[in-house]
């Protein structure tokens, strides 16, 4: 129902792999739900067993993933859109991971935020622009410090939100 370049289909092979992963997830959910205590003594009937609802979800995931897998086998050979800019996505994910797992909680929040914004902006603009790199780096540093300071001030003092 929507338009745009993003609508290119996913390749049949990617769908098959997704179906396999989801099938495994669904089976794991069913196995885990089955192993949950049933609390038959407490409830008298066992109808409040914690495993019923997740077991139902797991069964539906298995069923739907199976259908997805069968469909992808029938449509084998369908080519998907060419891979998008993997480098940028990987860089974003890596920087986000270092910031959220490595920096937050170990450094004061304003410093962690400043370092993250600086390195993010610097990395992407370094790749994009050949000239004026020194100026870009300086701008990134200023942006990082401003963000760290402003965010810390606004949320801690005005919104009274606790920061990591």
């Amino acid at each position, binding site marked *: 129902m*929507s338009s745009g370049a993003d609508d290119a289909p*996913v390749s049949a092979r990617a769908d098959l792999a997704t179906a396999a992963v989801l099938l495994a997830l669904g089976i794991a959910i069913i196995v885990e739900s089955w192993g949950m205590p049933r*609390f038959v003594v407490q409830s008298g009937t066992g*109808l409040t067993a914690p495993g019923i609802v*997740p077991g139902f979800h797991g069964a539906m995931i298995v069923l739907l993933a199976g259908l997805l897998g069968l469909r992808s086998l029938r449509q084998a050979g369908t080519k998907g859109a060419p891979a998008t800019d993997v480098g940028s996505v990987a860089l974003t*994910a890596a920087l986000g991971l270092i910031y959220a797992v490595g920096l937050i909680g170990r450094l004061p929040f304003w410093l962690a935020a400043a370092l993250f914004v600086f390195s993010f902006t610097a990395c992407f603009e370094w790749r994009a622009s050949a000239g004026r790199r020194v100026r870009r780096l300086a701008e990134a540093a200023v942006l990082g410090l401003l963000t760290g300071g402003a965010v810390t001030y606004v949320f801690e003092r005005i*919104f009274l939100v*606790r920061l990591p």
Partner: protein
Amino acid sequence: MNDPFTMLAGGFSYVLGGGAIFHALWATLLGIVVGALPGLTATMGVALLTTLTFSMGPQVAMLVLVCVYVGAIYGGSRSAILLNIPGTPASAASTLDGYPLAMQGQAGRAMGISTLGSWLGTLFGTLMLAIFAPTLGDFALSFGSYEMFWVALFGIIIAGSLSGGDSLKGYLAGFIGLFVATVGQESNHAYARFAFGNSDLAGGLGLLPVLVGVFGVSEVMGAMRGATVQAVSSKIDSVIPRISDVTKYWRTILRSGGLGTFIGAMPGLGEDIAAWTSYAAAKRTSKERHLFGKGSVEGLMAAETGESACVPGAIIPVLTLGVPGSAPAAVLMAAMMIHGLNPGPMLAISTPEFIYQIVAMLIIADMVKLIYGLILVRPLLWVLLIPRSRLMPIVFVLCTIGAYAITSRLFDVYVMLGAGLVGFILRELKFPMAPLVLGVVLGELLDKNLLRGLVLSGGDISPFFTRPISAFLFALTLLATLYAVPGLPGRLRGMLRRKPA
């Protein structure tokens, strides 16, 4: 007993107390900016602001969130018109005629039409909310556990069937969302499901960290991938709307308003579907059909009115059933729960005045939006051109604060990160996100009502199918599923056509 006009006046006086206009002004502006920036959606704006307004009172927090929601859905049309990129998915239909109008040197007129259409749409939808929400709320009081189970399942199935793209993947996304909601202690025996001895997991995956991850982090990752944007032109004609555009297309405005509100009120169908449906309906009945896609004023008006009427429409089921009508409304509902307002059928009993307070908030947001729409032209153009390499890290920092703020657990930041990565991969594999969100939000409702229904009936599942409303909702769910089976609707139509002959 409770006269609607007195209640509405009460709603206004309640909302307008305590510097509310100030909050409405900044929140609507923020919403428009968030909506206008490609890569930041209304859902993300509402999710982030939910956690950031956590320490405010419920009255101010709700006003801020409603303003961000209304503003963001409108703001998306700015980038649709000027850049040919929908700022939020809701504005995709606006690119079809908005951008051609801008290319013809009528960018200002297009923005004026979008402002006016959006203003009228929200106003129309709000009127419908004020009229129908109290009655529907009374009706919903007759729903028991069996019915609520179907309402939750119907929401996920219809979101999967119709939220655009692949319905099989829509259902899968919905059930993955439902599964995510089961992690942690359940309500009957406090057994920690899928915790594996970890005390953080036993507390469950927080609704908002998951939503901020799926809509914040994964959108940041997606946004860093695209090419840089360029505005269509720096010369913009007058944005003051023409009265003739309204008088000429009043039928389109009313039809789109009605369609938008109705689609909003259906669980899980969001603003994008409202806009596309209104656009298609206008095209089918228009005398100027040949202009559609080439810069039709009527087409743009239909899309804008439809998407903006959907906003109050999507809040109707939140207030009456406790089931969200769209993804941003799902987050709004989560915010209501956090602030101790209990959305759902009981609202009509416990706090009937809240419905009218929401009406007052919507009207205030709509008026502020109109003012900004007419005066903020150039500043919004500058905002659109901020490089993503500078904006996105700041958004990411806000996401981490948002995830952390509610319970002050670093675990929630990791949940956000995990949800963001998984959300990004699912998006890349063309899984729609609306059913996923609905699943996470409705998981508890479905869980509680399925088990409660089973206990009440002593393990007999027949009441789920035999009670009149249950049977009706089951039939609707089944129809929504059958509709999505490839080729089946056409075959059924063929069979029906052959019979009378």
